[in-house]
């Protein structure tokens, strides 16, 4: 088995100011197309810088694809788009080895996935077979075809969109696939002012056409290196673990978040902290990210579903129940809840 390497190294992190200027430029660029969705745009950017993948889930026509394309266009790097259809094949995604008669050898034709940014539109319209072609590349940043492993470039990001309403002719994403997406975001409807401004902006032509890239792949790599250097205090790490553990212990959840999600939560938190101009992560970052990063991975119990409780609501409630960490050890002096339930005598008898 051979391995073919591609892509660049993560070196030369930026200073805080430089980082902020760069990321602000990207956000401003995207906002030319997507009006009034700064938080969503920054979250999408954070996922990119956290080396994760983004799932945009919302009803049709709110700009899912527009956001994906705008983000792709803002970065001067290779962008591929896959329109997921029911007849899409795995080899269309990953690539295929074809016989080259001149060299009399099989030659690898890279699939759509070999790019810095892969926009997967309507991902749930492809069959699970095709969807699972993404599993390896999304987690391991590599594609193995015919025994040969091809490494993806950095940055590598899959931005997938899906429509949660229309169920006919779609295949829900398998749990493994969902877990590979770092964050799931919803676009939400624009407010009235933004929608009005949009009417003007889109009056004559699509502003997406005018969008030019503001950074190149190398800069993105430097941004990623900066994010990686963000400090995470022990207390914050503990908090991340506690948060994820809480999803596993919550009575309303049948399936909690995976250890992978802990990792991705912290990575995204680092990116958010850096975007916020900090060189350290605060619990606030984890709190904001709990719903986008964790909500799509957990499965509520039948009872919670019957009670029409969404995973978003369950998770934000969890966040509000969990005490924030402090670096002084022990309990907060204001925490009035019992420390540990005393071991019951009856528990010990059995």
């Amino acid at each position, binding site marked *: 088995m051979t391995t073919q390497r591609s892509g660049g190294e993560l070196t030369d992190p930026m200073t805080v100011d430089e980082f902020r200027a760069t990321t602000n430029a990207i956000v401003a660029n995207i906002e030319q197309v997507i009006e009034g969705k700064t938080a969503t745009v920054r979250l999408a950017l954070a996922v990119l810088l956290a080396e994760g993948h983004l799932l945009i889930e919302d009803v049709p026509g709110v700009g899912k694809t527009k956001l994906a394309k705008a983000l792709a266009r803002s970065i001067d790097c290779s962008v591929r788009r896959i329109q997921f259809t029911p007849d899409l094949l795995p080899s269309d995604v990953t690539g295929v080895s074809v016989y080259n008669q001149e060299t009399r050898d099989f030659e690898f034709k890279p699939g759509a996935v070999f790019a810095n940014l892969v926009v997967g539109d309507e991902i749930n319209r492809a069959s699970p077979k095709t969807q699972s072609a993404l599993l390896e590349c999304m987690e391991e940043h590599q594609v193995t075809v015919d025994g040969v492993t091809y490494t993806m470039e950095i940055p590598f990001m899959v931005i997938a969109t899906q429509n949660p309403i229309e169920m006919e002719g779609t295949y829900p994403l398998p749990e493994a696939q969902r877990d590979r997406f770092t964050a799931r975001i919803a676009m939400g409807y624009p407010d009235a002012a933004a929608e009005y401004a949009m009417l003007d902006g889109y009056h004559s032509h699509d502003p997406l056409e005018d969008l030019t890239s503001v950074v190149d792949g190398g800069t993105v790599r430097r941004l990623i290196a900066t994010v990686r250097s963000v400090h995470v205090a022990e*207390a914050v790490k503990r908090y991340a673990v506690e948060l994820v553990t809480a999803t596993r212990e919550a009575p309303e959840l049948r399936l909690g978040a995976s250890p992978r999600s802990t990792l991705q939560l912290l990575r995204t938190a680092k990116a958010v902290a850096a975007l916020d*101009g900090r*060189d*350290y992560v605060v619990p606030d970052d984890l*709190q904001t990210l709990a719903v986008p990063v964790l909500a799509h991975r957990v499965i509520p119990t039948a009872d919670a579903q019957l009670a029409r409780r969404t995973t978003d609501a369950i998770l934000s409630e969890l*966040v509000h129940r969990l005490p924030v960490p402090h670096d002084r050890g022990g309990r*907060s002096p204001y925490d*009035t809840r019992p420390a540990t339930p*005393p*071991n019951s005598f009856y528990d010990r008898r059995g």
Partner: protein
Amino acid sequence: MNSRRHLGLVAAAATVLASAPISDIFAGWSWLFEGGLMVAMVAGAALGARSLRGRLWAQLLAMLAALLIGLTWLFGGDTAILGLIPTPDTFAHFGSLFALAGEEVQKSYVPVPDLEGLLFVSALGMGAVAILVDLCAVGLRRPALAGLPMLAIYSVPVAVYVDSLSPIPFVVGSIGFLWLLVSDNVDRVRRFGRRFTGEGRGVDVWEPSPLASAGRRLAVVGVLVAVALPLAVPAMSAGFLGEFGSGDGLGQAGKGPRGNGRVDLFAELSGRLKQAGVQDMVKVTTNDPDPFYMRFGVADQISGGGFASHQPTGQPVSDSLPDPSGLDLSAVRTQAATARVEITDSFAMPLLPVYSAPTAVRGLDAAWSYDPTLQIVYSQRANSAEQSYEFDYVRAEFTADQLRTAPTMATSDSNQRDYSRVPEVPEVRALVDELIEGKANNYDRVRALYDYFSAKNGFKYDVAAPAGTSGAAIVDFLNNKRGFCEQYAAALAWMVRTANIPARVAFGFTLGSSSDNGVRTLTNRNLHAWTEVYFSGFGWVPFDATPSTYVVGSAPTAWAPDVDAPEETPGGPRPSLSANASGGPDGPGGPSRDPVDPEGGLIGPIDITEEIPTWVWVATGGGVLALALLITPALRRLTLRRRRRVRAVAATSGGGFAEVGVSAADLAMTVVGDADAARRQAHAAWDELIDTMIDYRLVVDPSETPRATIERLIGTALPATAAVEQARLLGLAEERARYAPVPLSAERLAPAVREVRLAIAGEADRGVRLAALLMPPSVLLRWRNAAYAGLTALSSGMTRLSGVLVRVLRPLRPRRLLR
């Protein structure tokens, strides 16, 4: 009716019920009318203030105003405008009523008639208690606290009566308190929502909850403990509970006359003194400005059981009476006087009280005779009840110098022979010999014995001491040094006789405490016994050895001064306090003839003239302790704040600074070289901020980050001033201290904390500010959590222990052994 209104009315009704024990003090019921009116006015004012949505202070003001108007209406007289609006004169009048009440307290005996001063004080007291109860129960929603002012009412009759009281008023009072508690609790439960049974049926408010049985069990245990605990305390045995055991006290009293003139006077005396109620027995008017005790009986024979009376003999009182027995009228200054006596039906004996020594008696029929030796008026068949009569008498005014001249009588003298006979008791003999050693004459010997019964020698008054005047009882008394007049009189007589001087025990009344237009009312509490010593040429000279401070209406005399009065004990170990102290026992240092015991009427045998009584110390100590407890949280809060500031300052001066600009932050900041110190400072500032927030009733959420906490604080409780920036600085400092690799420099934190605290305080309303100052909730919360943690640790420890025990003891289980 809303719940607060209802609770207010219940509080007023409970106050009225709780004042039931006052009925023990007053003979009539006007106090209830006037006090009830005060309570009603206070409750009405509170109700009105509440329906106008007045704040707590407004309610308090309204209640105070209502109380003032009510008092003016009832007691203000013509000093007020329209009879309702108080003027400065009204307050002056109130002041005089207070003074009047003080006098009435001194003069009267319980139960008192409707005296204006006391009625005023009781109405004022009930109104004040009503205000406090309303504040506690309705204003602060702490009805349990309302028990304290109610307890103040309880304590009045308890303090006034030495012996047992009827429990019924107290039961009524506690029913009021329980009513208040139940109403409040029902109201609380009702506010939770509707209650349901297991089957889903709605539960009515008054139906018992599933917890009711637990509550009942707790209540039973509480009552049992409250009843059982005093039994274990020895001092209580004389009171209410003492009746269960001995059966004396109430039993012997008032059995009425017994055929002849021989009465067991000692039994009568102790029985009547211990009797619960107070009965008027004798009303006497005399033109003598300075009378001594009235006497009606004498015990002059010593048998196996102690002193006893003998059958009196004499002639009918309708005849003119002989000269006072043994009195040489030429040598002694005498005072002739007339007295008129009315006897109630409570004093029913074949004896009549007269001043010594009567010379003529008018208004009595031939059934009554006079015994010149005993100097008593007696009857073989008539009863003293409802008698009224008038008599002339001469009161001898002996002086010590005169008495010193009395010659020692010959052993053949009948008085000497009859009245100095005494069984030989070695202990008494030894004591008497020691006391009279070196005394030249009979008077000095008697004085030496008399002076022995002083507080200095440890003698105390105790009406509960075992009665009895036999030789053994005398020895017991001289050892225990606790007794009442019976023991003192008998012991002195016994000792004087042991010194071979004639002596006997006289019975009668003290001067009493209430004198109304010259009419003295003597009650069973004024019954008394004292010693009479025979001096040749002077006759029977009274010596009252009972400590005068414990005897209401005692009358120390020039020849037998009060041994406990400081100026009357020359040569004693105590330093002389006044110039005339060197005057000797016969000096002109006039003993206090004021018959009014300052506390007398209401408090009974409590001595406040000599030393400050214990209860004052207990009350003062309790007050100081309560005050200390009350201000402890505030002090704790202050020390915490100071320590945090000191820590911040110390840390600032400690580490060297490395100024590193971190441009990422919105605020210009410097980062400290000594990171740990800076972290500690930031934490101290943050803790102070959080404590401040708790103090000012701002929500503190442990699941909130510093950043979120600060933003919420700015949004809700901070005015838009510089404090906002300071608050953000505090939040950033804490956040960086917790989570960042380099913390923020802590230089500006202490002033920031102060500014934010002042800003928060400025936004809070007055009540919250006051509570934050006096009873900081942060400190209380800390303590509560610490107590909770301790209890949790204890309970888990117990669980572990029981687990271990079960494991260890399991093999020993009886069933297994039987198998």
